[in-house]
C-alpha cells in the first residue's frame, strides 16, 4: 500500500465511522469514535510525542502503527530486556532516544504521553509514574493485574487531569461500529445472548533465549504476572459483550483448568464462563489452547438475526416455514378446499443455518493505528474520548472477576466498590 492508497482507505474509514456514529444509538454507545475520526493532518513538530515502554512483539507492533498516524510520533523507547530494545531501535532509528529504565526516560523529559506495552503486572507502576510526571498514558489491555490497580489507574488519571486510554482497538473498528449501528437499529431484534470465543492451538510458550528467564519471556503463563487467557485475550471480547449488551455483568460463573498443556504453567489453558447481565441476558465465553477450529469470534444473537463482527457478517433468522399441513388445517377451518403441496419438508435435526449472510463491510485499515489517532486527538485537546475508559475499566474488572469465579468455583457478583468513571 502506498501513501495515496493509505490516505484513501483512511478517508474511507473516517467516512464509515462518521456514518456509523451519526446514528443516535451508536453515538451514545461509541461517542469516542466520531471524535477520533476528526483527526487532521498536523505538522511533524506538533505531533504528540510518545515514549513507548516495552518493545517486545506487541510494543513493536504499536510503534509501527504509531508511525502511520497523522498526529503522533514515537519520541523515545524503553525496554529493560536488551534484545527487545535493540529490535525497537531498529524500527525507530537512531534519532529516537532509547532507555533501559523507564524512570530515566521520564527524567529525560520531552514527552507528552507514555505508551505502556509491558507485562500485565507492570502496567500500574509506570502508569502512576507517568501521571506523576505530568504525562498522559496509553496502556495495553488489560489494565492491570488486580481490580485494585485498575481502579488506582483510573483515579490517578482523574486526579491528574490526564488522559488514560486502554488498548481496546475493536472500539475503533468500522466493522464493529457498523455492527453496533445495525444492532441499535433493531436489525437483529432483541439481543439476549452473545457467544464469544478465542480458540488457538499452540502452547503459548516461547523459547527462552540465553540470558533471559522463563518468567521474563513467558510471563503470560504465570499467575503473578498474568491472568492468562482472561487478561490477554478475553478482555477484548468481554468489552465487546459489555458494549453490545449496553451494560456490565451482574455476576459471573466459570470453570477453568489446566487441561492440555501440563508444562508447569500456572494459568488455565481452558476457560469457560457465563457472564449474566440484567434481564437474564448472557455472554457465554470459552477460550482454549488446543483446538483452533472455531478461532476468534463473537456471535451477537438476536431474535431476528445474528451479527458476527469478527467475521464481518450479519445473518437473518430463517423464518419457520409454514408447513403444508398446517396450511391445510387452516383451509379446512375456513371451509376452503385446495390442493395440499407435499414432498419438501422432510424434517431433520435442527442443524446450524449455513446461509452465507451479508457482509458488514470491511476495509484496508488498522484499527490499532486509528485508536492512536484518537489518543493523539484526546491528548491535543486535553479531553478524553468519552466513554472509552469506562469500557476498558469494566472489561478488565470483568475479566478479573471471571478469574475469581473460576478459582473459587462460585458465582462472583459485580463489585460494588468500583471507581466511578
Amino acid at each position, binding site marked *: 500500500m502506498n501513501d495515496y492508497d493509505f490516505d484513501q482507505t483512511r478517508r474511507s474509514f473516517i467516512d464509515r465511522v462518521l456514518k456509523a456514529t451519526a446514528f443516535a444509538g451508536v453515538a451514545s454507545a461509541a461517542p469516542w469514535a466520531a471524535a477520533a475520526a476528526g483527526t487532521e493532518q498536523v505538522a511533524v513538530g506538533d505531533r504528540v510525542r510518545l515514549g513507548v515502554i516495552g518493545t517486545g512483539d506487541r510494543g513493536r507492533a504499536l510503534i509501527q502503527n504509531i508511525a502511520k498516524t497523522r498526529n503522533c510520533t514515537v519520541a523515545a523507547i524503553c525496554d529493560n530486556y536488551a534484545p527487545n530494545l535493540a529490535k525497537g531501535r531498529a524500527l525507530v532509528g537512531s534519532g529516537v532516544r532509547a532507555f533501559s529504565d523507564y524512570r530515566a526516560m521520564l527524567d529525560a523529559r520531552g514527552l507528552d504521553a507514555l505508551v505502556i506495552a509491558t507485562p500485565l503486572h507492570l502496567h500500574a507502576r509506570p502508569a502512576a509514574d507517568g501521571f506523576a510526571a505530568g504525562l498522559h498514558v496509553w496502556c495495553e489491555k488489560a489494565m492491570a493485574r488486580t481490580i485494585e490497580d485498575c481502579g488506582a489507574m483510573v483515579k490517578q488519571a482523574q486526579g491528574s487531569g490526564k488522559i488514560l486510554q486502554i488498548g481496546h482497538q475493536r472500539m475503533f473498528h468500522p466493522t464493529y461500529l457498523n455492527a453496533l449501528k445495525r444492532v441499535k437499529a433493531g436489525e437483529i431484534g432483541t439481543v439476549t445472548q452473545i457467544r464469544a470465543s478465542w480458540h488457538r492451538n499452540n502452547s503459548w510458550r516461547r523459547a527462552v533465549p540465553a540470558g533471559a528467564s522463563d518468567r521474563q519471556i513467558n510471563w503470560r503463563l504465570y499467575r503473578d504476572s498474568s491472568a492468562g487467557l482472561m487478561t490477554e485475550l478475553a478482555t477484548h471480547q468481554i468489552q465487546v459483550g459489555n458494549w453490545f449488551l449496553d451494560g456490565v455483568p451482574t455476576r459471573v460463573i466459570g470453570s477453568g483448568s489446566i487441561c492440555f498443556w501440563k508444562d508447569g504453567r500456572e494459568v488455565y489453558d481452558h476457560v469457560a464462563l457465563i457472564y449474566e447481565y440484567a434481564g437474564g441476558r448472557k455472554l457465554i465465553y470459552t477460550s482454549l489452547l488446543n483446538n483452533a477450529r472455531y478461532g476468534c469470534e463473537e456471535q451477537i444473537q438476536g431474535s431476528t438475526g445474528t451479527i458476527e463482527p469478527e467475521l464481518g457478517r450479519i445473518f437473518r433468522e430463517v423464518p419457520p416455514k409454514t408447513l403444508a*399441513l398446517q396450511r391445510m388445517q387452516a383451509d379446512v377451518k375456513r371451509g376452503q378446499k385446495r390442493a395440499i403441496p407435499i414432498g419438501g*419438508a422432510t424434517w431433520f435435526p435442527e442443524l446450524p443455518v449455513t446461509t452465507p449472510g451479508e457482509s458488514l463491510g470491511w476495509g484496508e485499515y488498522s484499527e490499532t493505528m486509528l485508536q492512536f489517532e484518537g489518543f493523539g486527538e484526546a491528548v491535543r485537546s486535553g479531553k478524553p474520548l468519552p466513554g472509552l475508559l469506562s469500557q476498558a475499566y469494566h472489561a478488565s474488572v470483568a475479566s478479573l472477576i471471571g478469574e475469581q469465579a473460576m478459582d473459587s468455583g462460585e458465582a462472583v457478583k459485580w463489585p460494588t466498590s468500583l471507581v466511578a468513571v
Partner: protein
Amino acid sequence: MGTRIEIHAFGAADDDALFAARRAIEAVDDALTIHRPSPTTALNAGLMAGEIAVVTDRVLLDALVEIETAYALTHGLFDPAADASKRSAGWDAISFDPATARVSASRPVALDFGGFGKGFALDRAGAVLREAGIVSALLSAGESSIAVIGEHPLGGAWPITVPHPTKPGDMLVELELTNEALSISSTIGAGVAAPERAAMIRPIDGAIITNDRTTVAIEPTGARAEMMSTALLVADGDHATRLLTDPFARRFLFDFAHEAAMPAYPARMPFDERL
C-alpha cells in the same frame, strides 16, 4: 425414523385414539430402528452370525410379512437386506417362514428398513384411527409419505400436489387420494444432502443412483407406497417401464436429466383412474 410425523384427524376424534395412534408409530420405530438396540438389531446379529432367528416382536414380524409379500412386485428393487459394501447381500438370501416366525440367511446379511418404516408406521397408526371410528384423517411422515383415511373433511378426494423439487412454484403432478397412501422419493431437492442420508443404490446390481430423479407412488398402503417409490427411483430401463405401466397403479417417475421429454401429466389424476 428421524422425521416429523403428523396426524390430522377431522370430525370426532378423542385424545385416546390419537394417543394410541402415536403409540403405534413409536412401536414401529422401536421395532425397526437400527440406531439403537431393537428387535431388528437383535435379528441382524443372528443373521450375521449365521443363526436361525425366531422373531418374537409382533411389529417386526408384520413388517417382514409385508416385505415378503410385496418384494416381488418391486422386481427386487426394494431390498432391505441390500448392502452397498457387499454385492452378494440381499433379500433373496433370506428364508422367512411367517407361520413359525423363523428367519435364516444363506449369507451374512443385515436388514435396514429405511423409508419403509415411515409408510408402515402410517399404516399401523391409520388402522388404530379407523378402529376408533375416525373417518377423515391425513397422516404424514415428513411430508414425503402420507396416508389418507376416507375423504377430505369438506368432501370428495384429498387434493395433493407434488411440487417441483428445484423450481419453486412449479408442480410435477396434482393427484387425488381417498383411502390411499402416497410416497415420494427423490435424489434431488430439500433434505437429500442431509447428514446420515445414505446414497440410493440399485439392489440388483449395486449401482449408485446419481440421476436427478423424483418418483411418486400411490398404493393401498403406506408400506407398499414406500417400497414402490424407492423401487422406481433406482429402476432402470425395462424395470422402470414395467413398474410404470402397471394398469392398476398410479406411479410417476420424473427424470430431470430429460426434463423436456418428461410426460405432461394431467393436471388432476383422479383417485379412481385405475378402476
